[in-house]
Structures are given as structure tokens and as C-alpha cells.
């Protein structure tokens, strides 16, 4: 009887491990690009990258462009779409599977204060698309202001304050981690999410906040990106009846 030598064992283990990694590298290129779709072009000012879980051909891209036509705040003319996209006729004849059927459309933001992410989301949905991610880049400090039609009582405020931090905590995939704190301005029926510093080349997925509000049972009328005078440290955010009656927002948001 012959037994495996330590050298044989080590070689076989290394081959197995490297082989599996190579297989992954070869067959799953989408996994290496899922982190950030707007990294390459974030140096050229604020940009919004819309990652569509389905955008497989030029036909899809045309419909996305139609959906976003006339959208205030973004420069659709300078939008960059996915390269090497199949044409619609070619996609009709294609039999093989694609590594990923999703793709991203990058939109330069021309006027940040006019951009309404809810409007973008609705426009896409009206055309039969859903933006899986809305990745903002090129804005180091910002906050999101979600205007709500419904925010009738202190309990509504409290639920947003408490549950948003809960959502942050349970986001196993790192969702909402870019949010430093959330405060509710009851008088203005607005939920404000203060983002952490956004490093150059990195992106924040704003769709997570939109989905989070939906998950909590609220449909915002608009969701805008704000910068400038109202930026303050989250712990300095006003606490009172208007902020949801939370006993200690700092603790909840930590």
C-alpha cells in the first residue's frame, strides 16, 4: 500500500483551490465588477449610475433612454451606456447564456438640486424597467431628503428612526452602511439621511434608502440630493417631537 506524501497532498490541495478560483474568474466576471459601476468615471463631477438588472441589448438601452428623456438634473446627451452591448437583432439570434444580463447606464448630473430619484425610478418603471442600484459618485458630502405625503404622528416618526437603524444593522450585505444617521423633520414631512464621506472613486447606492423607506411602509413623493448649508454632524441633529421622539438618536444610529 502506498500513501500520499505531504508534497503530493500540498500540490493537490493547491491545484484544487487554484482551479476553483480560476473557474470562478473565468465564468463569473460579473462578481468582480459588482462593487462599483461608476468608479472609472467618478472623477468628472457628480454622476449617477443606474444599474439595471436587465439591460441586455441596444433595444433595452433605447427604452431606458426614452424613459429618462427630459429628466431634470441629468444630462442624458452625455450619458454613457454599456460597451459591447449586443444589438437587438443579434440578441434575437443569440442562443448562449450571458454571464450577466444586467448593465449600467451612467448619467452625468448637471443640476444636483433638480434631480429627483423617485422621478427617475418611476420613469423607468413606467417603461417596464427597475433600477437595481442607483449609485451616486463625485459628491463627497451630501444628504438625502425624502419628502413624504404621510407622516401624521409621532409614532410614524419613531418607526422611521428606529427601523432605519434596524435595517442598517441587519443589512448582511453591507446595505445602508453609507448612512451616518437618519432624522425625521415632522413639520416638513421629510426624512433626512446624512451620508458618510464619500471617497473619490467610491459610490453610494441610493436605491437602498428608497427601498428601505418602502420596506418601512412609506412611499416618498420625492427623493433629492442636497449639499451645503444644512450639513451637520449627525449627533448635532435636532432632537425633539419632530425628530420622532426617539430617546437617543445617537445610540440608535450608532
Amino acid at each position: 500500500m502506498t500513501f500520499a506524501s505531504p508534497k503530493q497532498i500540498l500540490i493537490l490541495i493547491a491545484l484544487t483551490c487554484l482551479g476553483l478560483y480560476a473557474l470562478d474568474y473565468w465564468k463569473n466576471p460579473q462578481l468582480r465588477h459588482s462593487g462599483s459601476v461608476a468608479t472609472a468615471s467618478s472623477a468628472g463631477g457628480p454622476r449617477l449610475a443606474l444599474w439595471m438588472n436587465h439591460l441586455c441589448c441596444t433595444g433595452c438601452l433605447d427604452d431606458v433612454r426614452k424613459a429618462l428623456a427630459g429628466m431634470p438634473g441629468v444630462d442624458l446627451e452625455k450619458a454613457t451606456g454599456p460597451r459591447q452591448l449586443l444589438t437587438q437583432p443579434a440578441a434575437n439570434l443569440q442562443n448562449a447564456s450571458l454571464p450577466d444580463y444586467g448593465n449600467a447606464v451612467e448619467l452625468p448630473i448637471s443640476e444636483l438640486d433638480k434631480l429627483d430619484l423617485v422621478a427617475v425610478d418611476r420613469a423607468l418603471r413606467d417603461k417596464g424597467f427597475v433600477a437595481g442600484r442607483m449609485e451616486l459618485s463625485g459628491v463627497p458630502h451630501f444628504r438625502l431628503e425624502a419628502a413624504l405625503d404621510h407622516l401624521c404622528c409621532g409614532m410614524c416618526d419613531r418607526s422611521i428612526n428606529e427601523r432605519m437603524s434596524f435595517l442598517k444593522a441587519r443589512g448582511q450585505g453591507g446595505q445602508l452602511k453609507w448612512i451616518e444617521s437618519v432624522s425625521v423633520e415632522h413639520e416638513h414631512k421629510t426624512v433626512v439621511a446624512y451620508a458618510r464621506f464619500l471617497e473619490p472613486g467610491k459610490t453610494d447606492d441610493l436605491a437602498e434608502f428608497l427601498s428601505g423607506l418602502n420596506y418601512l411602509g412609506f412611499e416618498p413623493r420625492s427623493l433629492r440630493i442636497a449639499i451645503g448649508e444644512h450639513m451637520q454632524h449627525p449627533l448635532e441633529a435636532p432632537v425633539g417631537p419632530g425628530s420622532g421622539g426617539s430617546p437617543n438618536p445617537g445610540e440608535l444610529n450608532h
Partner: protein
Amino acid sequence: MRRRLVFLSAAMLTLLPVTVVYAHERFIRHDLKVPLHEQYFARQPGMFLGMQSDMLRIATVSCVLLLVFLVIYFFRQNLDVFIEQRLLSAGLRGRAQRALHHLANFLTDKPVRLPSFRAVGEWAVVMFIRSPALVLMYSATNDSLVMPSYPLEPTSALYFKYIQVFLAILMLTQTALPLAGALVVGTWLYLWRYGWMVVADAIPVLTVAVVYLTSPWQSHRVAITELNEQQARWVRLVLGFGFFALGWLKIYNYHLTAGVADNYPAVMDDPMIGFFAMGTNPLFRRENWIVAFAFAEVLSGFMLMMGIFTRVWGSMMIWVLAKLMLVNFGFEEIPHIYPIAATMAIVFSSKAGSEFSFVERMQQKAAREGKPWLRIASVGAASLVIAVVTVYALLYALTFIDRSHL
């Protein structure tokens, strides 16, 4: 003998109702439904060791339990001699005496010379080296890798599934087992791609690789029905360490553990957890449950790893894992066949050893030299150090790590 048996029986009865303690939560739903008190797991200024008082209480209960088991174990030879030769020699004869002798050997990790015990042990080894194939086939049919909780990417799923089937064939036909072992270890290393917690979660997978790698290339020609001493030791070490690590992971990634309780609230009504968490603040019921749950696994993993009452703790684990699979969580826990088989191979092996046998030898030497206080002091000090380091060291370190974002 009777006193020891009564004590061990009582201990087993206390611990056996751990109905769902060993929930392999990755296979089952674990969405958190209610927020936890995050501060419970963080540092508490002004508190002893900076720990929350309930957490400290549970840790102390665990420490005392471990201490008691260690002390009894280190005196097992003397207790055995005393009970068998002094207490039972007068009262029991024949079959009853032999039965109790075998039972005592079983409970104190000594070789059991019974044909039926040997037959079960042989069958357990056969099941142990083949059962991973069933898990692999189950995973392959569920488009996952190694375990059903790790789904494969659709673009590469086919290749990984074929590889798993190939590996399963090697296992089932007992062909080129060293290659099978290397494939298992290589795949485990590849799991880093999913993150270090996945790798830690899959440590028990390596248990069978120990046997495969130490088998001959011509493994298909031999009947492997017994583990040699080294194999039994490494299987025990790896399996025990796997459970030990999983226990600490429960405290580290407490959101996930609490998620299990949120989805299966019945798991919190457990006598053993109640024992660990006795006297704690009901306001932190879920948090206390997480820590108690974790320590149950840490202790059992540690005992198994170090060879302290291996058979007693192994039997409890088999019972709990089987109950989880058949009663509590159902078919989704079917991969537990594999850890059950691995634990059976250890429990029914007559080659049990201990990593702390040097303490036993030390106290026996002191006994021969007529130094009773040295015996007691050496066993007491060793047990105390082992118990304190095992329970408090990592728990203390964890309080410095903010895990609220996990």
C-alpha cells in the same frame, strides 16, 4: 461507581434536553425580526471586564460547569478504581457487574470490549467516510456548493455541480481517497471567496479529509472500518474545534443567531439555556439566549476537541443533531447526517485520548509519592486555568469589537 454514575446520569439528563441548541442556522431562516440591544454586546464602562452583567453571569456559569467536568475527568482513574473495587465488588456479580463495568468504561472514555460496540463503531466509520457524498449530491441538486446555504452562480453552477458529483463518486466507491481529501481541503480553502465566516462555518467539513488524506492510494482495495489512533485524534480535534469555533461565531455574529430565534421562537424555551441563563435580566432575554446558546456549543466543542468525556458530550451532540434534523427543522437540516456520522465514529471508537492527559499523569505521580495536597492543587489549578482561559479570554476580546454592522 454508583455515585459517579448517578452524577453522570444527572449531568446527562440536565444537558440532554438541549433540543435546538446546535441549530445550524445557515440552513434555516435567520432574518432578524426585532432589533437587539446592541449595547449588550459592546463594552460596558465600569463593569468587571467591561462586560454586560448578564453576559458575565452566563460566562461564569459556563466556567464553573467546565471546571467541574475537568476536575472529575482528571480524577476519573481514581474514582473508577475506588468505585469498582471498593463499592461494587461486594454488591454486584455476573452480568450486572460486567454491564456496569462497560458503562463506566464508556462514560470515562476507556476502551469498551463488547462485540456489539465494535460492530457499531465499524459501521459508524463506514458511514462517516461515505456520508459526505450524500451531502455533496444534495448540494449539487440544490445548485449549491458543499452546503445548501452557499448557492452557486448560475454561470458556473454546472461545472461546480459536476466537480461535486465526481468527488461524491470517489467517496462512495472509496477510490483514490487522498485525492478526495485534497479536493475537500482545496474546496474549503476556496470558500474564502465567500468570506472568513463561511470558512469557519465549514471547518467540520475538514474532519473527513483527515481520514481521506491518511488513507492509501489503493483505498478501493481495502475495507476501512476502523480509525487508527492518530486518525481518531485528528478527527476529534477538527470536529471539536469546528463546534468550538461555531459557538464563538454565534456571539460574534449575534444578529444571525438572534434571527434563528426570531423565526423559530420555540428554540428559546430550552432547559439547558435556562440553566445557563438563570438569574439574568429578562429584559435581555434574546441577548442572554444568544450567549447561553453559544456557550453550550463552545463547551461541547471544547470537551470534544480536548477529549474530556468525549463519549458523553459526543452522545449528546448526536442526539441533538438527530433531533434537529428529524423534529425541529426538518428536511432542510438533512446535511447533519455528516456531523452525526463523524461524531458516531468518535463516540464508538475505542481509541479515545485526551489532550490534557499530562494533568492526569501529574496527579497520579503525586499520588504515588504520597502528596495528596499536591494532587488536589495541581488538578484544581490546571482545571481553573483551563476553564477561565477557555471561557473568558475570547469573550473579553469580543467586547472590543463592534459587530453591530454585521
